[in-house]
C-alpha cells in the first residue's frame, strides 16, 4: 500500500507540472495551420528585436489560417550558440533559426539536419542579396544557410582627444599611430581600448585583424597561422598596444564592458566595434558621439583595408514534409525581401547581407557605410576563420603575452596548437 502510494506520489510530482504547464509539442499536419518555430537571439535588449517581431506579425497576418510563425526567444547569445550546437549535435534543429557563420557552425553542413537552399537560390531570390554574400555561405557547392547580418568593424576615433593632443588627422601609418599614442598619453588620455576577456577578446581580436590587414594584405587567412611570420609580427604590434600605457590597466581580463566603457567615458581615443554600438554611444555619451570619426586602421604594406564578416545567417531544419518546407521557404523569402530587410536595418542600424534600399542613417552610420564602401579590401576576422576552441585560446594567449609571460612567438604557438 505504502509502495503504491510512493509510486503514485512520484508520478504525480512529475505529471502535474507537465500537464498544467504543458504548451503542447506541436507538429504540422494535413490541412491544419502550419506552425513554424523561429528560434532567435533578436529579442529583449537587441536592437533588431522590435522590427523582427513586427515583420513576423505582418507575415502571420498575411498568412492567417495557413502559416503561423512563433518566435522562440533566446536572450543570451553565448548560451544560444551552445544550445544550437547541442541540438544540431543531437540531430535536431528549430524550424528556423540563426547561427554565427563560423567554422564550427559550418561543420553541420555535412549533416542532413539543415535545409539545403542551393536550388531555391538559383532563381530570383539570390538577387535580393548583396554581391558575394551567397558565396560566403556556400561550401562544396551547397548553400545551407542564408547570409543575413554583416558585421563591419572599422576604427572609432575620438577626434576631441586627438585634437587636444595635437593630432589633427587619423594616423595613416604605424609610425604616425605610435607618435599619436605618445601625444595622447602626454595630454592625459589613454590611446586605445583593449580587452583580453569575454569569450573572444573581441576588441583586441579586431585590432589584431586590422594589423594583419595592414601587414598581411587581403589574403592573410590563406597563410599558415603556425609558420607564417606575419602573424608573429602582428602579435608584436598588438602586444605593444598593451604596453607603456597604450591601453588601460584593466584591459587584461577586461571584457567588452571595460573596453567600450572607457571609450564611452571619453577616456580612450581609439576603439573598435560594429554599427550595433552606435545607438549606445549616441544615447549614453552624446559628447563622444559628436566627436566620433570612423576610419581605417593605420596602414603598412597595405592600407585602407577593413574587417567585414557574415555576422548571422538564417538557417532552417531539413524536413520531409513538402508543405512545411514550402511554408519555411515562404517565411525566409519574406524576411529577406529588400523592403523588409531595409525596415530592420533602418530601425536597428544593423548592416545586412540583403540589399536595403533607401536606408538612411545618422552621421556615424553614414561614416560606417563610407568606410566600408571606400575600403581597398574587406577581410573576415579571426573568429570567422577558426573554430570556437581556437577563438577561446586567443584571449588566454593574449593575456599571457600582454602581462609579459609569453612572447609574440609563444602567443602564436599557443593558438596554433589548437588549430586542427
Amino acid at each position, binding site marked *: 500500500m505504502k509502495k503504491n502510494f510512493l509510486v503514485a506520489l*512520484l508520478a504525480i*510530482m*512529475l505529471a502535474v*507540472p507537465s500537464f498544467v504547464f504543458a504548451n503542447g509539442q506541436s507538429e504540422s499536419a494535413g490541412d491544419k495551420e502550419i506552425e513554424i518555430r523561429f528560434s532567435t537571439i533578436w529579442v529583449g535588449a537587441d536592437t533588431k528585436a522590435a522590427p523582427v517581431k513586427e515583420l513576423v506579425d505582418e507575415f502571420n497576418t498575411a498568412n492567417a489560417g495557413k502559416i503561423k510563425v512563433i518566435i522562440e526567444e533566446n536572450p543570451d*547569445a553565448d*548560451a544560444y550558440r551552445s544550445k544550437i550546437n547541442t541540438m544540431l549535435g543531437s540531430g535536431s534543429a528549430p524550424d528556423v533559426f540563426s547561427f554565427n557563420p563560423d567554422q564550427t557552425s559550418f561543420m553541420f553542413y555535412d549533416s542532413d539536419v539543415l535545409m539545403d537552399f542551393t536550388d531555391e537560390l538559383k532563381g530570383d531570390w539570390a538577387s535580393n542579396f548583396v554581391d558575394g554574400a551567397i558565396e560566403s555561405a556556400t561550401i562544396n557547392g551547397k548553400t545551407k544557410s542564408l547570409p543575413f547580418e554583416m558585421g563591419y568593424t572599422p576604427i572609432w576615433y575620438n577626434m576631441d582627444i586627438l585634437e587636444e593632443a595635437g593630432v589633427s588627422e587619423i594616423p595613416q601609418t604605424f609610425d604616425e599611430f605610435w607618435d599619436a599614442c605618445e601625444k595622447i598619453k602626454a595630454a592625459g588620455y589613454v590611446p586605445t581600448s583593449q580587452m583580453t576577456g569575454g569569450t573572444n577578446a573581441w576588441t583586441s581580436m579586431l585590432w589584431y585583424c586590422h594589423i594583419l590587414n595592414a601587414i598581411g594584405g587581403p589574403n592573410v587567412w590563406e597563410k599558415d597561422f603556425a609558420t607564417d611570420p606575419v602573424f608573429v609580427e602582428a602579435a608584436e604590434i598588438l602586444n605593444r598596444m598593451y604596453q607603456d600605457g597604450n591601453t588601460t590597466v584593466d584591459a587584461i581580463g577586461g571584457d567588452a564592458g571595460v573596453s567600450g566603457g572607457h571609450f564611452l567615458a571619453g577616456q580612450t581615443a581609439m576603439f573598435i566595434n560594429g554599427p550595433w*554600438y552606435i545607438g549606445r554611444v549616441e544615447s*549614453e555619451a552624446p559628447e563622444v558621439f559628436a566627436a566620433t570619426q570612423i576610419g581605417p586602421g593605420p596602414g603598412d604594406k597595405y592600407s585602407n583595408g577593413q574587417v567585414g564578416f557574415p555576422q548571422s545567417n538564417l538557417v532552417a531544419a531539413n524536413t520531409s514534409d513538402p508543405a512545411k518546407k514550402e511554408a519555411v521557404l515562404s517565411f525566409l523569402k519574406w524576411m529577406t525581401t529588400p523592403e523588409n530587410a531595409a525596415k530592420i536595418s533602418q530601425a536597428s542600424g544593423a548592416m545586412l547581407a540583403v540589399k536595403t534600399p533607401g536606408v538612411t542613417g545618422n552621421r556615424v552610420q553614414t561614416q560606417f557605410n563610407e568606410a566600408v564602401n571606400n575600403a581597398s579590401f574587406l577581410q573576415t576576422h579571426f573568429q570567422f576563420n577558426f573554430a570556437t576552441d581556437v577563438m577561446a585560446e586567443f584571449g588566454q594567449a593574449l593575456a599571457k603575452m600582454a602581462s609579459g609571460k609569453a612572447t609574440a612567438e609563444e602567443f602564436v604557438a599557443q593558438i596554433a596548437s589548437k588549430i586542427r
Partner: protein
Amino acid sequence: MASKVVKEKKRLGFLGTFFKWFYLIFFLCITLLPLIWLFITSFKTNLEFETASAFSLPKVWQFGNYVKAISMSGLPRLFLNSIIVAVFATALNLIVSAMGAFAIAREKFKLNNLLLSVIMSGVLIPIIALMVPYFRLIKNLFLIDNLGGLILVYSAINLPISVYLIHGFMSTIPKELEEAAVIDGCTFSQRFTKVIFPLSQAGLATAGVLMFIYCWNEFTYAMLLTNSERARTLQLGIRYFKSQFVVDYTSMLAAIVITMIPTILVYVFMHDQIIGGMTNGAVKG
C-alpha cells in the same frame, strides 16, 4: 609569578579574541561587499556602471532599472515557474535519494560501497558533457519546453550529492532503533517510512536546501530544454538584458537582486538545518 601568568593569559586571550574577530570580519567583508556592490550598482546608469568607482553612490537613483527588470523580461511568470520547478524537483529528488540512501546505508549487502561510489562518481561528470544525452532523452519523452522536463533533469543531476548527504546522515542512526521496529512487526518499507525517514530530517533539509538553491540558480539546462516563457525560469529572465553586442548591465543587476531574495530567505530561515545537517554528515566515519 602568578600575576605574570594571569597577565600572559590575558594577553593571549586578547590576541585570540582579536584574531577571531579579525577573521570573522574579514570573511564577512568578502561575503558582503559583492552583495553591497550589486545592490548599489543596480541603481546606477550603465555609464556610471562602466566608468564610476565600484562603491560610489549613483548620482540619481535609477529606480526605473527595477521597473524595467520586472516588465521587460516577464519576471513574475518566470518567478512562478522557478518556484514550481524548484519545489517539485527538490521533493522528487529527496524522495528518490532518501530511498536510495536508505538501501545503501541500512541494508548490508556485498555491493554497498561500490554502489555508493558509482552513484558518487556522477558528481565528477561535468554537466555540459551530459547536454546531448539529456536533450535527446527529454525530447523523446516529449518534455521539451515543459516544466516536467526541467524537474526530471534537475532531480536526476543532483541525485549523487543528495544520496551522499542523506546516506551520511542515515548511517548515524543507531541500528537498535530499527531492530526494535522489526520486533514490533515493521516491514522493510515501514522501517523506511516510520523510522529512518522521519529521523533523517536534518539530512533531508540540508540536501533539500542545496537542491533548491541549485534549481533556483541553474541556467544551462533551462536554456537548453525550454523555448518559451511558459516553461522558462528566472535565470533566463536575467539574460534578457544581454543582447549579442550590448548589455544593459544595471537592469540585469536589478533583476539579479530580485531573483536573489528567495534563496536568501531560504537560507535565513533554514541555516540551522543546513549547517547542522552538513556537520552531522561530515563527522560520520
